């Protein structure tokens, strides 16, 4: 019974059902605020997808990830507010800037391994925060940047309104999930995963470690930049707090809960936690009393996260039943759909 339900979830058609649900969400939502929360969650999910590429697939814990999100947001903010650029050129600019900075930071930091890399990037993340906060001539310092241009709808749509911007963000989220699934299934994704399994083994398989790690790093920072740029376009205010290291740790939580290194883990984790946090809003700061133990239990008993545990369970079940692997290789989908339904 459970297995049949699982098989249904993993059916290829489920992802279209999920997409349909996401498209209908503004109509199903009780109020505009819920659409707004969902759009923000989508933005974070995009950033978490980037985090998943470098940390989930490639195994390098990059604690500067939130910093690159902020750089993407500030790039759009400053280019539009201070230099009078239109949103879309600034958007492209943000992607280029985060990719180039990702390359430079990656080329230096990836010379370090494991926790040394994590500590180094933690410092990079903090330096980014300090620059945003203190370099007043460029970043406006602690007061942040106002007057950011909204995405240009070319007279067809007005992206200053919540619902159109929701669809815009959804479009990018779908693109990111599609692109990530391409990477994951390809030889490139397998190369990243081989590096995660161990530098020594990967190298002995003829994999150029530095080249592939930098590539994964640049992909991840560009995702973060994309998310940051959308964030700036939607909220239209950025401040140094957007570069707070706390955001990176939030993203780690989303990823661990959803399932690190899985295709739908970032989406499940981000949407799940954002909505749980929303529904526990009435507890104010006491919500951590519920949240903390919940996380601990999850990490101890389901280290693979929701998506990873589900996929593993399904695979073993299918093996035990003597079914082919074909069905099982698809990722979980309706899992998230159910979550969306529950929360809507």
């Amino acid at each position, binding site marked *: 019974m459970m297995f049949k339900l699982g098989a249904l979830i993993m059916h290829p058609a489920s992802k279209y059902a999920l997409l349909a649900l996401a498209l209908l969400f503004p109509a199903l939502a009780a109020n505009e605020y819920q659409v707004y929360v969902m759009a923000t969650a989508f933005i974070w999910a995009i950033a978490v997808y980037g985090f998943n590429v470098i940390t989930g697939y490639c195994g390098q814990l990059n604690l500067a990830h939130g910093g690159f999100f902020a750089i993407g947001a500030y790039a759009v903010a400053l280019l539009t507010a201070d230099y009078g650029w239109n949103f879309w050129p600034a958007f492209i600019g943000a992607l280029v800037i985060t990719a180039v900075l990702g390359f430079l930071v990656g080329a230096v930091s990836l010379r370090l391994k494991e926790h040394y890399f994590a500590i180094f990037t933690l410092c990079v993340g903090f330096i980014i925060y300090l620059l945003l906060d203190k370099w007043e001539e460029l970043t406006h310092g602690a007061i942040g940047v106002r007057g950011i241009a909204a995405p240009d709808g070319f007279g067809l749509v007005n992206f200053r309104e919540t619902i159109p911007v929701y669809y815009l963000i959804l479009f990018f989220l779908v693109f990111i999930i599609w692109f990530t699934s391409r990477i994951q299934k390809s030889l*490139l994704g397998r190369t990243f995963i081989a590096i995660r399994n161990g530098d020594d083994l990967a190298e002995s398989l003829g994999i150029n470690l530095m080249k592939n790690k930098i590539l994964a790093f640049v992909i991840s920072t560009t995702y973060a930049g994309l998310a940051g740029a959308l964030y700036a376009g939607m909220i239209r205010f950025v401040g140094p707090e957007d570069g707070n290291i706390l955001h990176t740790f939030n993203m780690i939580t989303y990823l661990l809960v959803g399932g690190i290194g899985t295709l739908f883990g970032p989406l499940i984790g981000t949407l799940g936690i954002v909505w749980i946090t929303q529904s526990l809003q009435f507890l104010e700061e006491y919500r951590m009393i519920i949240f903390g133990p919940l996380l601990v239990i999850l990490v101890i008993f389901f280290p693979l996260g929701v998506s990873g545990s589900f996929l593993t369970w399904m695979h073993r079940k299918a093996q035990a039943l003597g079914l082919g692997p074909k069905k099982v290789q698809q990722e979980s989908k309706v899992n998230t759909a159910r979550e969306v339904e529950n929360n809507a």
Partner: protein
Amino acid sequence: MLKVEHLTKMFGGLAAVNDVSVEFGANQINAIIGPNGAGKSTFFNLISGVHQPTSGRILLDGTDVTTMRCDHVARLGVGRTFQTTNLFETATVLDNLIVGHRLRTHSGLWDVLINSKRLQAEEKAAREKAREALDFVGLTHAENRYIADCTQEERKRVAFALALATDPKIVLLDEPAAGVNPEETEGLAELMKKMVKNGLTVCLIEHKMDMIMGIADKIMVLDHGEKIAEGTPEEVKNNPVVIEAYLGSDHDAAA
């Protein structure tokens, strides 16, 4: 096939490998034995490019690979396994093996984005190569099993298959039979013989003497980083220096 000349590796003041010269012939099983800490794994690391030697030369089929990086050496046809192989536990055996052929492919990010013909062809080739390697090590039936659900011996075979998927000319096996029972050890020994029969050259580090003596064409004995003996199993077995290194001399025993 593999020729090593005066190879030395210093770690600080310690000579992990000291002036070792040896030649391993093609299509043979070559074993490296020696007490713990003799420098056997370091020797492998030097050949495969993980460490750069302090001095000496390494020639692979006449090509100087002494200062080459690991991934280049692998591309030239040196495959290897480790004492412990970290694989992707919650992925299938086949999924773990496909990447083995990556070094013979060229697809990059752009191919992934547009799903190019080249990428599709290369992925197909990598999958076929993985199946072929799996068949070679006799694990076709376990293709869809998670690594986490494999026995120790099966993992060893997967590690062999991964090395074979790189299309090597020579494979370096670091303690392939550690942690498997005698019956399974025999199976792994058969597998090594099969590799040689298929044109590969095998180099292995092993502590299981019964197995070594049964299959090796040539044995090199290392002790404290130095080569103390070399020859056929028969020669090595009766060499007093080797016996002393393993059992200690009367002098050592007294001290």
